[in-house]
């Protein structure tokens, strides 16, 4: 948390050069995420090809592109849900090659899902506690025999879970079955659960989906506050351009699995390739 306090003093975002999205304040550190020629092929079709991205330790970055561009596929590659056919993913300098999803998660990468994946039969608090699974531990025998460590760790889990829920104003919902929550609350719960794993990099897959402008505004503030409070990097996939342009320090544009542009919001908005990808070629005459 002291790291976060340090960074809170930097309020101005520094314009980034267009070939990388590493804010200058992080330029000496190992980037939290680096991908080198990352790609995956499904039966001859290159869903993602030559994906090169670097993200700084406390950067908020965006990944955008038309539908089917391969954005969620990139997330799946970063979290090792898919094994890449080419290239590498490095988290804090460590190559994820050959790792399982669980191993990748232990290195500090957490995510939310496009189609909400909560543990719908479990309560809100229990969902968060799953996020704490590898943070506050005790083994099976301790649990069955109810040894002192069980009571101590359960209390710690409960307190930590409530602390996290409190940040998002969800503490009153702790005992509700997560499957019965309204959509917006479910999306927020997914974020809380992901944060419980104490990640270094948080991947948000379309966090604003289904939200009205007011909720989106709130989400924008929350994302910046999460970065400030937890001192982590955030990469988000989004279609809502006001959110992306408003909160992302660097943006990466994907089309047909390849990066077509990288840069700040202004640079991206002016980029003709990006415009063409979304709107098609400008008519002659």
């Amino acid at each position, binding site marked *: 948390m002291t790291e976060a306090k340090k960074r809170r003093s930097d309020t101005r975002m520094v314009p980034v050069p267009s070939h990388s999205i590493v804010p200058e304040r992080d330029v000496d550190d190992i980037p939290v995420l680096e991908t080198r020629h990352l790609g995956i092929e499904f039966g001859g079709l290159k869903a993602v090809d030559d994906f090169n991205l670097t993200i700084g330790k406390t950067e908020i970055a965006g990944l955008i592109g038309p539908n089917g561009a391969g954005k969620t596929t990139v997330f799946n590659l970063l*979290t090792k849900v898919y094994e890449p056919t080419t290239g590498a993913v490095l988290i804090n300098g460590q190559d994820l090659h050959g790792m399982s999803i669980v191993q990748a998660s232990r290195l500090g990468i*957490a995510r939310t899902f496009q189609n909400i994946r909560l*543990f719908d039969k479990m309560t809100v608090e229990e969902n968060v506690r*799953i996020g704490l699974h590898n943070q506050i531990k*005790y083994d099976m025998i301790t649990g069955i025999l109810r040894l002192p460590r069980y009571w101590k760790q359960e209390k710690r889990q409960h307190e930590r879970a409530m602390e996290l829920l409190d*940040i998002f104003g969800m503490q*009153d919902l*702790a*005992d509700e079955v997560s499957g019965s929550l309204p959509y917006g609350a479910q999306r927020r719960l997914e974020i809380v659960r992901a944060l419980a794993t104490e990640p270094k990099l948080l991947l948000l897959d379309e966090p604003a989906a289904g939200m009205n402008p007011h909720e989106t505004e*709130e989400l924008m503030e929350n994302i910046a506050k999460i970065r400030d409070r937890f001192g982590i990097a955030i990469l988000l996939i989004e279609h809502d351009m006001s959110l992306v342009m408003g909160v992302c320090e660097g943006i990466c544009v994907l089309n047909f699995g390849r990066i077509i542009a990288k840069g700040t919001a202004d640079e991206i908005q002016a980029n003709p390739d990006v415009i063409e990808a979304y709107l098609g070629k400008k008519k002659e005459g």
Partner: protein
Amino acid sequence: MTKAKRRRLIYNLVTFALVIIAYIVLQNMIGAKAISRSLKGLLVPICAWIIMAVSLNLVIGFSGELSLGHAGFMSIGAYTGAIVSGWLLAAFDMQDTTLRLILAIVAGGIIAGIFGVLIGIPVLRLRGDYLAIVTLAFGEIIRNLVNVLYVGTADGKLHFSFLNKKLPEGVTMLVDGAKGAVKIKPISTFTAGFILILITLVIVLNLVNSRAGRAIQATRDNRIAAESMGVSVTKYKMMAFVTAAVLAGMAGALYGLNSSTVVPTQFTFNQSINVLVFVVLGGLGNVLGSVISATFLTVLPEVLREFADFRMLVYAVVLILVMIFTNNPLIRSFINRLFGPVKSLFRGKPKSVSGGDLQ
């Protein structure tokens, strides 16, 4: 204490209380000779089936995997128990039946657990219906194997033979192929069954309400999300599966040592299905429900004996009707409208969702 925690505590207490009270009542009935012979003979089997149902619920209800071969573990436990008890008696003249029973039950659990690990490794790699079919296959394989198993004891040593009965001369037969485990001295008691139920409840309820238990349930609710949160699906599904196998093995040993023979036909696919029915009817993830349904459905055919030929028919019809009534949305909404006002009295006001803000 949070509301959820309180609810859970009450649920657990009720479960234990029910079992303890039932035990006390039945013991009194036995003492006062106020119990029918057939019911008395059912006491140990009921204990065994309760443990089978609760352990299977761990796999199906909490871990979310359909296991159709649970009777196989019971069979392993029964045979192990019979072998161990017979061997201890013949080789060491261990006359203390309580000690023999304890050792037999523990052995049954351990051996069944080992098989649980061996079977679990390939099985838990599969999904859904394919996993179910493989558990069925393993159950059948076990049934086939014990049918051609020959075990005898002589001079304190155990002799095993497979397929052909090639055992040394003058050996005391413990397991005789298709004839099953023979000449068992029945040593199971209702008290032993009761204690075993308590142990099972402690293990299952404590496991489920712990970090590991939450992990197991997470793997049931959403496999990919669980892995993404760092919960190893294989590890926790194995945990549930092997724990269930151990409990089933112990139940098997108890069950087997309740009569003078144990035959392979007692542990067929039909038995696995029986236990499955107990679990589903009692409610997936509902331990108390499993206790009640296992008891009820074990006693029911006996009670229906009056109807002689009709009793299995009635059982089948009742089963079908219960399933339709509890699962058809139209019938359910009808019942909800009847009892709705009563239900909402217990539930209280629905929660409001606050917008929330980061501090």
